[in-house]
């Protein structure tokens, strides 16, 4: 079959990324031709600033060398600007007469610097700041001249000014707004930034209005620029003027072709132009829902979506991105996102330490974080950005919000919050043992830009995520990637565009009962999901429709399929249930006999007051369970694990309540309860709290007059103290409130979301209202839980009823 012809105009990051995505999924669909106006292959435009500053070379920032184009059979026309598109004949014409016919056309012409319409703008030595040629002109000027003026104190202008200063020029930044980076910073942060740049040697003229650029010819209107004159009549010397007063989508060609343009080439959610179905546009030249994005992450999102449509898969829609900003000036940390100025109806929480060079402002509206502006300490930028994107209530963490996520007891990276201060050998990700050096190397060698890329390739921050802020700082410093943009709604996994909430809602509303039906109803992209969505779907089905939806063991992780915990060598661990942490001589004898009989190498007492038998062969599991003769401890499952207890009033001279009995009752009432994640309880008999109730999903503390309940505690990656929920008088009330709280979590929690994160997402007040204030609702929740648990089998003994496929325990032997 003859291949279709795809022509791309523009050879920059967004366009080439689209081709890369396309080649990945449909390598043979097109003959591809690329026109680039610059004489260079695709390079990382974001890193022009480090090149200007002398921190990197042009060779280092090339993303796709010429060999890449050749290897992929792409016809590359470098240094040829396209001057005309003939949409009737479907041919593209370049300035030198080169022609290329197309079946489909991709426009990725990027943007052009905005040149102030002042007299003298055409003088020699007046340039924009956009490409390699501009950068080389600046580097060259720095070797010959002394004075530079940068017009525009935004992101680009400051980076240019910093680079020229490092190359030895005396630089003045002219900025018309009242403070620097006014689109990204508020006045206080802008002023801090200015002071820090003044300390480095930059001069600023804030509020100055440029009237004309003066040339060195006799009448001042020709030759090379020699000064800049302002409206107030003052002049500053300038041998080089860099216009960095903004960029404009480069739509000249598209407009001349008759494509509808409005602040960019107008495209749909599939990145197709609204005018011509054969023409797509991505990158800075495209206007999606009225916005032309200038950061790399949204452009790469666009590239991915566009590629699936060019590949004729027809899946995926680009729904827009929220963006945040960081400045690429080494040694200056700033971050901003959202509505950081605040205003009517907004509250601001501000921390200001001008001496220490730290300023943080968080803008809150209707109990939600709507904006953040950070200067000097940006490690929590990604966390704020996440809160902002998710739009969740911050009322319950408002008092701690300013101190960041790491104030809540992070572990694993020695409390570091400045990646720049770390040595290459320092560990960034304590879960996966990834050093700063390894991350930098992967970013450089593999051309990574986004947090997701880095996670995939290095596993850094891919497990517990507590080092995400550091990893982002490293990406910023190394690749310049504007990683920090993300789709508004997080999809469950790559198999679908639906979020966890969408899926939960659909299962309930459409009464879906099987994984296959759910995937069909929600147009799953893969035939039967993946290892990440199937367990979630299975949980949502059985928790929403107990007794109706059938458990699918093949969609459960191995631990829940074999009802034991897989260990690193492929053996399993077995933890029998000990109600409330109490055992008997008979049980201990049976356990001892089993250890001898099956030669179990390790016996360990767990933190949950039980006994763990480690190193059991899979073939022995069923016999081990039978010989021990104790119920499953579900230590392997996203389910109720243990109820830890202290000895309580029965023995303890301080005990006020019978915590052991309360614990046993709770455990008997709640065991076999599957949940979005593991669930741990504890009951202490007095406020000395020997059972550590403060770090449990539900923690109960006996006091003289009854019981106090705490929820959302967690002793894991982040130590989270439980929050006070209520105080009740009787043990029956403890049962009902705990059960209702957990049932609400079972019905609402997203898969793999611990109670603490669920509470943070929906708000403790909302949960209190539905569990404590609304008594009828509490009783209904408690009844639904009892209905779901009634008759649930013990998987160690009732194999058929628990859908345990016992064939798995017996290896096949060829005869």
């Amino acid at each position, binding site marked *: 079959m003859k291949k279709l012809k795809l022509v791309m105009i523009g050879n920059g990051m967004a366009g080439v990324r689209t081709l890369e995505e396309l080649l990945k999924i449909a390598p043979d669909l097109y003959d591809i031709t690329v026109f680039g106006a610059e004489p260079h292959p695709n390079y990382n435009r974001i890193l022009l600033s480090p090149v200007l500053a002398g921190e990197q070379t042009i060779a280092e920032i090339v993303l796709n060398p010429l060999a890449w184009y050749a290897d992929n059979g792409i016809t590359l026309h470098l240094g040829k600007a396209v001057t005309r598109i003939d949409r009737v004949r479907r041919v593209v014409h370049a300035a030198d007469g080169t022609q290329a016919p197309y079946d489909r056309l991709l426009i990725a012409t990027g943007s052009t610097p905005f040149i102030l319409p002042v007299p003298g703008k055409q003088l020699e030595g007046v340039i924009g700041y956009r490409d390699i040629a501009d950068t080389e002109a600046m580097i060259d000027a720095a070797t010959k001249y002394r004075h530079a003026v940068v017009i525009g104190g935004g992101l680009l202008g400051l980076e240019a000014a910093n680079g020229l200063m490092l190359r030895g020029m005396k630089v003045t930044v002219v900025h018309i707004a009242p403070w620097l980076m006014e689109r990204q910073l508020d006045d206080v942060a802008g002023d801090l930034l200015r002071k820090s740049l003044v300390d480095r040697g930059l001069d600023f003229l804030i509020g100055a209005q440029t009237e004309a650029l003066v040339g060195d010819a006799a009448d001042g209107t020709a030759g090379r620029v020699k000064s800049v004159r302002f409206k107030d009549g003052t002049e500053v010397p300038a041998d080089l003027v860099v216009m960095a007063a903004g960029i404009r989508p480069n739509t000249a060609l598209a407009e001349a072709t008759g494509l509808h343009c409005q602040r960019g080439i107008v495209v749909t959610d599939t990145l197709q132009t609204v005018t011509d179905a054969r023409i797509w546009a991505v990158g800075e030249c495209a206007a999606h829902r009225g916005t032309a994005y200038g950061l790399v992450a949204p452009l790469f999102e666009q590239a991915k979506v566009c590629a699936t449509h060019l590949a004729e898969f027809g899946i995926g829609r680009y729904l827009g991105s929220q963006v945040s900003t960081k400045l690429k000036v080494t040694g200056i940390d700033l971050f901003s996102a959202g509505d950081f100025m605040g205003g009517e109806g907004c509250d601001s929480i501000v921390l200001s330490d001008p001496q220490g060079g730290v300023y943080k402002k968080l803008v809150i509206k209707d109990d939600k974080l709507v904006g953040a502006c950070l200067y000097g300490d940006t490690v929590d930028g990604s966390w704020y950005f996440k809160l902002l994107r998710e739009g969740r209530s911050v009322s319950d963490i408002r008092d701690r919000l300013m101190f960041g996520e790491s104030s809540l007891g992070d572990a694993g990276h020695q409390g570091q919050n400045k990646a720049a201060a770390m040595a290459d050998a320092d560990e960034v990700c304590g879960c996966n043992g990834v050093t700063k050096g390894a991350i930098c190397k992967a970013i450089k060698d*593999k051309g990574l830009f986004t947090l997701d890329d880095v996670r*995939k*390739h290095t596993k850094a921050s891919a497990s517990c995520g507590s080092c995400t802020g550091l990893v982002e700082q490293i990406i910023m410093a190394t690749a310049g990637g504007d990683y920090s943009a993300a789709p508004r709604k997080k999809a469950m996994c790559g198999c679908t565009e639906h979020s966890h909430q969408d899926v939960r809602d659909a299962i309930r509303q459409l009464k879906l009962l099987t994984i296959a039906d759910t995937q069909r109803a929600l147009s799953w992209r*893969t*035939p*039967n*999901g*993946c*290892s*990440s969505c*199937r*367990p979630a779907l299975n949980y949502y089905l059985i928790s929403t429709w107990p007794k109706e939806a059938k458990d699918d*063991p*093949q*969609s*459960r*992780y*191995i631990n829940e*399929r*074999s009802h034991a915990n*897989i260990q*690193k*060598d*492929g053996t399993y661990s077995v933890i029998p249930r000990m109600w409330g942490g109490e055992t008997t001589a008979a049980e201990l004898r049976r356990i001892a006999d089993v250890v001898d009989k099956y030669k179990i190498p390790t016996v360990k007492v767990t933190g949950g007051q039980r006994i763990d038998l480690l190193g059991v062969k899979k073939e022995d599991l069923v016999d081990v369970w039978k010989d021990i003769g104790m119920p499953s401890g579900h230590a392997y499952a996203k389910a109720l694990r243990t109820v830890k207890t202290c000895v309580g009033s029965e023995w303890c001279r301080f005990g006020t309540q019978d915590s052991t009995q309360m614990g046993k009752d709770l455990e008997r009432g709640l065991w076999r309860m599957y949940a979005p994640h593991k669930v741990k309880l504890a009951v202490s008999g007095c406020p000395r709290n020997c059972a550590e109730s403060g770090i449990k999903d539900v923690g109960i503390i006996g006091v003289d007059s009854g019981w106090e309940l705490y929820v959302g505690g967690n002793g894991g990656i982040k130590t989270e103290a439980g929050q006070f929920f209520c105080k009740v008088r009787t043990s029956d009330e403890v049962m009902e409130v705990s059960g209702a709280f957990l049932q609400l979590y079972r019905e609402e929690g997203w898969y793999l979301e611990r109670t603490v994160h669920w509470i943070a997402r929906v708000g403790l007040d909302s949960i209190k209202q539905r569990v404590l204030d609304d008594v009828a609702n509490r009783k209904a929740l408690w009844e639904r839980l009892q209905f779901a648990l009634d008759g649930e089998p013990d998987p160690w003994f009732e194999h058929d009823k628990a859908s345990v*496929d016992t*064939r*798995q325990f017996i*290896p*096949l*032997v*060829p*005869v």
Partner: protein
Amino acid sequence: MSDWIQICRVDDIPVLGARRVRRPAGTDVAIFRTESDRVFALLDRCPHKGGPLSQGIVFGEHVACPLHNWAISLEDGQARAPDIGCATRFAVRVEDRAVSLLASELATLAIDDADAAAALAAARKVIAIASA
């Protein structure tokens, strides 16, 4: 002469699941069944850290290793990018829903694997001690 040796019926393997095949020597072989009843066989060792692939979740024509969730292609044993590694493949024949493997492969393929892994682990320990 036929080298094929019957192992089980297709229906002895759960849909979107796996079984282990024990060999006289060497690591087990995992046989997988997809939704469309295609059957594949790989050495039951993830190329990453040796996890038993037979215990993973099967989806499409991939299996996710139970230890660290690497996605391994059932067709060619390759780890899905960006992870790099390859699990040894075994030929499979399905006739009249009977699943057969090659006796010669079972007897010889990756047979030293367990020993090699043990040797490698020992060598690593020596290096670790030497550099400590």
